């Protein structure tokens, strides 16, 4: 960059402030001596000097700088109170090549948006945050900010900030520099010319980092609020020097800019053919299995119930999957949440020709009970002549109702004999096929690779065998 021969309104600013309502489109809305104007100018100058006005996006917060978008000739988003780092996160990821500048005051950043700034910093989002700390809420008329000094009088601390009731002034640079991800964390001050020049250098460095996609830079600037502080601007500079610097010492808390690795973001796949390929459309083709016209059932409303870990959910899902392959309408509804943790689990499965209404089987025509409490609970709600299949390995007390078709099957025992208790669900599927006549065990075996996609050949074979065992057991013992 050549030596400047003129210092004038930088090109980072809009020439005529078109978004600003009213007549005065040639000047800012800021009070005389307000630090925001100085900081705006340092940013706008950097945007011009680095030739990045067009690719920059400024996030305007809530506070006096809510209208920052009046001024910057960049892309602009005005956002909700405290949320600039969250919005900036998405903006940065949407446009990885852009330079995202999140501009925030102390109430916005350190109070209502405290979590948002910490989390964006912790993710190392590629943006520069310019944090204007003037120890007061300016926009709303001079209330206490999280950075208000101990003893400082504001409209909501009329007797001075008392740490016992109001806590201590939050030191954001100190907090953020505890995190691993940020590459640059610094505090500067507008209290004198050397301070302003350091602020200028820090802002430029932060912006440069964002340009180079180095991650998260945090530039705090101690700034005057003459109106809020009820002081003359020059007196306000002195107040920063005499009062604020003690609690908010200037300096660089972190600078790993030189070691930072360039952040790369993925390129979205939008081509429909590629999307289909990635979503595995090819493997989701219909298998065209024919329904058995002689099946004993063509409409099943099933409850599967037992301990968590007994393959309750997977039995239901497997049956719904197989039913779907045969062209039935199917639904599977779990009992979810706390019910699933610890105690008994159950699910409803419907397999039928016509469109399914309610998915919950309040009056099942079939129950698979894998333990005693489940048998007791669901035997009661079976319809007359319903099918009660139960796990005779674990259930020793027989069902009480006499109007049911009862199938005691040693499911757990058979699975254990196959060497893996987890195949209980497939024993159930085989038994279901035999009882209802709806599915053919050989055809189900053909579905195993899609049901257990990604698993080893051995696992698939084991499950096929389990289906066969369940099927054969029913055929051999109940006919």
């Amino acid at each position, binding site marked *: 960059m050549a030596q400047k021969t003129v210092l004038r309104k930088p090109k980072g600013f809009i020439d005529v402030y078109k978004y600003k309502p009213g007549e005065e489109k040639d000047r800012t809305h800021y009070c005389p001596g307000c630090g925001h104007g100085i900081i705006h100018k340092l940013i706008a100058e950097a945007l011009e000097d680095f030739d990045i006005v067009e690719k920059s996006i400024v996030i305007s917060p809530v506070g006096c700088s809510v209208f920052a978008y009046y001024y910057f000739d960049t892309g*602009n988003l005005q956002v909700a109170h405290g949320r600039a780092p969250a919005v900036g996160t998405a903006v940065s*990821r949407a*446009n990885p090549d852009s330079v995202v500048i999140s501009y925030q005051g102390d109430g916005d950043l350190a109070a209502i948006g405290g979590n948002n700034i910490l989390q964006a910093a912790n993710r190392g989002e590629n943006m520069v945050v310019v944090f204007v700390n003037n120890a007061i809420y300016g926009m709303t008329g001079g209330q206490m900010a999280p950075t208000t000094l101990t003893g400082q009088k504001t409209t909501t601390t009329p007797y001075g900030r008392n740490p016992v009731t109001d806590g201590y002034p939050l030191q954001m640079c100190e907090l953020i520099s505890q995190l691993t991800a940020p590459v640059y964390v610094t505090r500067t001050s507008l209290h004198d010319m050397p301070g302003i020049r350091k602020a200028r250098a820090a802002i430029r460095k932060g912006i440069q980092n964002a340009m180079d996609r180095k991650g998260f830079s945090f530039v705090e600037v101690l700034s005057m609020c003459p109106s809020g502080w009820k002081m003359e601007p020059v007196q306000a500079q002195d107040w920063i020097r005499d009062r604020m610097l003690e609690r908010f010492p200037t300096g660089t808390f972190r600078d790993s800019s030189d070691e930072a690795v360039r952040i790369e973001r993925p390129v979205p796949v939008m081509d429909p053919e590629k999307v289909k390929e990635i979503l595995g459309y090819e493997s989701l083709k219909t298998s065209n299995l024919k329904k058995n016209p002689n099946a004993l059932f063509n409409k099943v409303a099933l409850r599967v119930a037992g301990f968590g870990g007994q393959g309750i959910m997977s039995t239901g899902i497997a049956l719904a999957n197989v039913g779907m392959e045969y062209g039935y309408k199917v639904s599977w509804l779990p009992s979810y949440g706390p019910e699933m943790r610890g105690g008994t689990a159950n699910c409803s499965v419907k397999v039928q020709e016509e469109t399914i209404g309610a998915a919950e089987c309040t009056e099942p025509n079939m129950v698979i009970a894998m333990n005693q409490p489940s048998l007791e609970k669901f035997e009661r709600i079976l319809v007359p002549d319903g099918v009660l299949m139960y796990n005779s390995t674990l259930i020793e007390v027989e069902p009480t109702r006499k109007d049911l078709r009862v199938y005691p099957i040693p499911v757990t025992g058979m699975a254990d004999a196959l060497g893996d208790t987890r195949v209980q669900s497939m024993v159930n599927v085989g038994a279901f096929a035999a009882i209802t006549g709806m599915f053919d065990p050989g055809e189900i075996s053909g579905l195993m690779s899609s049901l257990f996609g990604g698993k080893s050949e051995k696992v698939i074979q084991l499950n096929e065998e389990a289906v066969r065992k369940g099927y054969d057991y029913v055929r051999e013992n109940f006919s």
Partner: protein
Amino acid sequence: MPRKLMKGNHAAVYGAALAGCQAYYGYPITPASEIAESAAAIFPKLGRTFLQAESEVAAINMVYGAAGCGLRVMTGSSGPGISLKQEGLSYCAGSALPCVVVDIMRGGPGLGNIGPEQGDYNQVVKGGGHGNFKNIVLAPNSAQEMCDLTMLAFELADKYRNPVFVLTDGVIGQMMEAVELPEPVSELPDKSDWAVGGTADSRHLINSIYLDHDDLEWWNMELAKKYETVEKNEVRFEEYKMEDAEIVAIGYGSASRVLRSAVDLARRKGVRLGMFRPITLFPFPKDQLAALPDRDLKGIITVEMSNGQLVNDVNLALRGRMISDLHMRMGGNVPSALEIVEKVSELYGV
């Protein structure tokens, strides 16, 4: 057509991916967590953005940011999370940003429980955030519709530059059904005239501030006009055995699934029950309901899993010519077909 057995929650994510949704920002909450989990699994494979936000509030503001940059973007949650998102939704509506929010309703108020409920109706359909805005609200009642209506949600969001909700309850989110997967969209709408893009020509402003009273009134009038257009063009509903119905039952989401069973059960007992199911809750199918009193009906009953939130809109639509009865279940309880049929015979002596 390829089809897959999947939960409603997963189907919504497939719908989003197929609609060209480029970013998902969300926070875990039962019974909607599978949406975030599924997006976390699928989106990175497609080079799309998935980010688990630090809060519900952050998530909706990330949605604001992505939408402001012209992306198709989605978030998902349940009641307590939607309450937290309301401020951000107001900003999205105020800034005319298209975005999709899936709400898998659970029991409330407060922490309530994680059972299925429909108590978010008012906060979603009436635009629960501050100011004069409305969400477009689609109410799927199957896994298939979770996919299809999520795709439609993106289309409507872009068409009207407005937040669109996919509103359903824990049953539809958690249940698995076969979903036929449609073709992915091949072309996304051009938003270069308003979206911020980090280029010279896309230095637009995304903003909801109108300091001048007349300006803000003008903008609210514009929004009102938009909602009127939506009401004119986008009403969707389903009828089941309404042709000869002597009694009409009204419900959406999983309540409507039960109503379908109730209609069949009632008819087996000789009662001509029919079902009217709003698919869009805003726009509400007012005209269709307003015409019901022209029929020779013994009664209208609204079945909802909330405290009379839906029936208010039904009765507004009926304009006092008839008054809908109400059967409500709450707390995670889903009505059964049998109890509805019993209620119908008790109310109407059939």
